[in-house]
């Protein structure tokens, strides 16, 4: 084994093991509160270090498969590194570090209980995320996908109230239901016709199925990945908002939902292959469903008075952008889709952080109660405004790049209607995101704000960092673009 692939092996196993070890340490030290917080942040730091070391290995190590063990039917649990996976791993582990600090501040300020269980499950979820990011075949992907669902369930049900349990039940039910009911069938089907489950450049399904069945298989995959929250399987996302805000922030802006769209991207590129998809137009129905989801979810978001629920529907809509970019299956749209995976993550996590900061400081959750709050909590609302503009997609903020490529992708695929729909959706973004910021700053405080000030430092600091990141990424994104050019689509 060459030296490079050996160090790759070590890095990949480390990125799986670091969070697991962190979880075990937290379990062992459950009684010492300060210590588990330290371990929690330390684990996130280590993980980020490992991820960076993988990025630094560059393009030499792409698509080198590393086998852990052989599972069934001689299908191994195997990992590899490729640009999409590295991007996802970077986004997840980078934002995890910020979230750990935020989570500690939030959980302490709101006097939440069972902290050890909470931090432990958080770590385990990150291990699952890393497994998804580096998976080299569909079975490995499926295993870690299920582990992610299972490890996040306790986080969603964390409060233990009836509402929390009901939300967690919907969460588990839809995610497990779609993955076992559709995704597993799709994987088994793929295995029975091709005899391989490996992700390989250009796809494995060329000339294997008639067009109609290929369309069905693609639909099974896309709907089977319930984490991508394509309508009508989106209900789990608003339901899971009962979780404490750090969970919503990391898991429902970054790890879980992005795991969903990442799986869609990966399956589009490496299982079907973009040429197969476009030449058989197996992607057509999904394109329309994604477009519909994008617009409908925006419309629903308009109606939500609960801030977290509004953000949840906004997430559904933004995820549909990414799915849309993936299933349009042109070089540009895939690029836009992958970039949006990163930019939306940074923007949306900021918005969730803000929602959590407002709740921590005021215990308010309804948008209509937040008039004038911007004057009392200037940092939070400034960060909110920056992130909202980034998500809308205006320069000089990161979101503008990904929107640009997505619209360009729709045009390059000769689908002008989709490009128009993207623009309409942008308008809707403005309508449901901006009033909160405008009312916060412009309107007079409604009263009853006595004694309210900004949330604690460890809550406000992370959201300022991510808001800053929205700005910085605008200038750094060309580097990410260059990195993604290494993505081998054909």
């Amino acid at each position, binding site marked *: 084994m060459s030296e490079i692939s050996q160090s790759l092996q070590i890095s990949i196993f480390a990125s799986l093991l670091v969070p697991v070890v962190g979880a075990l340490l937290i379990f062992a030290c459950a009684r010492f509160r300060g210590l588990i917080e330290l371990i929690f942040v330390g684990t996130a730091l280590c993980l980020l270090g490992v991820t960076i070391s993988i990025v630094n290995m560059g393009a030499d190590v792409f698509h080198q498969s590393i086998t852990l063990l*052989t599972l069934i039917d001689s299908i191994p649990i195997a990992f590899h590194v490729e640009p999409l996976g590295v991007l996802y791993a970077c986004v997840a582990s980078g934002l995890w570090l910020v979230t750990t600090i935020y989570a500690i501040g939030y959980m302490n300020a709101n006097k939440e209980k069972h902290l050890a269980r909470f931090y432990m499950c958080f770590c385990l979820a990150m291990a699952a995320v890393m497994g998804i990011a580096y998976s080299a075949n569909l079975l490995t992907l499926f295993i870690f996908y*299920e582990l992610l669902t299972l490890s996040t369930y306790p986080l969603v049900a964390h409060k233990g109230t009836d509402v929390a349990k009901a939300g967690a039940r919907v969460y588990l039910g839809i995610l*497990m239901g779609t993955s076992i009911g559709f995704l597993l069938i799709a994987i088994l089907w793929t295995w029975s016709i091709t005899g391989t489950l490996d992700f390989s450049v250009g796809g494995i399904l060329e000339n294997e199925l008639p067009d109609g069945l290929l369309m069905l298989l693609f639909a099974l995959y896309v709907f089977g990945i319930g984490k991508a929250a394509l309508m009508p399987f989106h209900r789990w996302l608003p339901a899971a908002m009962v979780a404490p805000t750090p969970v919503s922030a990391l898991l429902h802006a970054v790890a879980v939902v992005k795991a969903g769209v990442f799986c869609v991207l990966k399956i589009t590129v490496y299982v079907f292959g973009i040429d197969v998809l476009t030449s058989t137009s197996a992607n057509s129905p999904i394109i329309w469903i994604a477009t519909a989801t994008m617009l409908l979810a925006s419309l629903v978001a308009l109606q939500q008075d609960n801030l977290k629920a509004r953000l949840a529907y906004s997430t559904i809509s933004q995820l549909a952008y990414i799915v849309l970019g993936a299933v349009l299956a042109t070089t540009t749209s895939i690029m836009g889709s992958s970039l949006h995976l990163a930019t939306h993550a940074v923007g949306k996590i900021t918005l969730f952080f803000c929602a959590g900061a407002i709740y921590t400081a005021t215990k308010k959750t309804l948008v209509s109660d937040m008039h004038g709050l911007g004057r009392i909590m200037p940092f939070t609302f400034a960060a909110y405004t920056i992130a909202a503009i980034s998500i809308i997609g205006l320069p000089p903020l990161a979101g503008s790049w990904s929107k640009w490529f997505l619209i360009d992708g729709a045009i390059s695929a000769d689908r002008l209607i989709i490009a128009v729909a993207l623009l309409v959706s942008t308008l809707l973004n403005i309508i449901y995101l901006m009033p909160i910021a405008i009312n916060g700053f412009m309107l007079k405080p409604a009263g009853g704000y006595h004694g309210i000030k900004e949330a604690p430092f460890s809550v406000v600091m992370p959201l300022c960092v991510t808001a800053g990141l929205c700005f910085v990424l605008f200038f750094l994104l060309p580097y990410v673009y260059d990195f993604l050019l290494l993505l081998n689509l054909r």
Partner: protein
Amino acid sequence: MIATHYPILQVVIPLIAAPLCSLLPKSRLPWLFATLVSWIAFAISISLMLQVKSTGALSYELGSWPAPWGIQYHIDLIGAFVLVLISSIASITLLGSRQLVENEIDSSKHSLFYTAFLLCLTGLLGIVATGDAFNVFVFLEISSLSSYAMIAMGDNRKALTASYEYLIMGTIGATFILIGIGLLYMQTGTLNMLDLKVRIHEIDGFRSVHAAFAFFTVGICLKLALFPLHHWLPNAYAHAPSVVTIFLAATATKVALYLLYRVFYTIFGFEFSFNLLHLGYILLPLSIIAIVMSSFTAIFQPGVKRLLAYSSLGQIGYITLGIALETKAGLIASIIHLFNHAFIKGALFMCMACLLSRIHSTRLVNLAGAGRVMPWTCAAFVIGGLALIGVPLTSGFVSKWYLVLAILEKDYWWLAIIVLFTSLLSVIYIWRVIEQMYFREPNEGCVGIKEAPPLLLACTWAMVLTTLYFGIDSSYPVEMATAAAQALLNE
């Protein structure tokens, strides 16, 4: 030299040990003795397994009377496989059982209980080891009668009715099997299974052979609790002492399934059973109904033991479904699931035993907050439950993988969807329990409760780790099942 006698020793050692056990005084001795015997049986079964693997099927003639006149013991690959399964589960169960028996059964009956347990073990091992059809009936009765007695020892009066119900249904089943054997004997003049196999081919158009086939089918399906002949099972499992539930759930129905393979593949042969008499046409709908109906019923059970019993009915449905597909892949999937399910259900009922030993109830409402006070037990239950659902990295996933692939091979799309849909139902019933354990405040009754007895807990985890192990490295059951299926199909 003694190794040549292992086929008979496998059965005779527990048989002789049983009456000896009843003579032992009131103390820990009966437990120790029974455990020792079961471990010896386990060791023998492993060495038999190794012998069969290296030299092929073993034949042993009792008293050196040559077959087909004398009684012949015949152990082939699937036989050895099931022997290992039964004896391993018996030895783990017995090892952890001391405190359970002390809690649940009157101390004057302890030695008798272990006697009955050993007899039941003898019966189950005998059914598998013997190559003689009448011997099968004898051992079937030995195991059944002793299990009626054990079920009746449950501390609830309902155990008596449960035992009585099982007695009636079980006796009908055994009688039907006996009638089947009798009919075959009248037609062929032989009781040796291998001999029967040859002779039946000459007379496979005879009405009486068809009638024998019918009697066997109903009799065996009664014993393995296939819908609609399942009614005895939930009550028996729910009210029996917890040791008995663990043992019976993991082994008794599995031995009935073994008998099904034996009778329909070895004696009658695949051609006769599936192409001439179309057994698949009966098994397929019944299995599907069993799977769907029992999964739904399980969701609404207030008691976890009964919930698991209904889930067992569904899992048996998966096993017979594999057979009903009439393909080699289906048969392999069926054998794999037989093996995996034994350990999964064993582990889950072991968890119930742990909970019973401290909380004294397995009703769902009384398990609130159990995850706090008994973390290891509840963690074991979670893993067992995930295996039952078929989550990857557990043995349940391996079973499901092979079963669905076998179904897809036949192009039964709708069936694959039903199978996966029913796994979702199992998510629901398992999650009701997990939610209760972890996300409820503990009841007043739960305060100050300790973790289950260490030995019992260790045995529980032994089973749990087994399911995890075979979920990660499934090569042993898969190789065994493939080879066994080849042998059963005469390839």
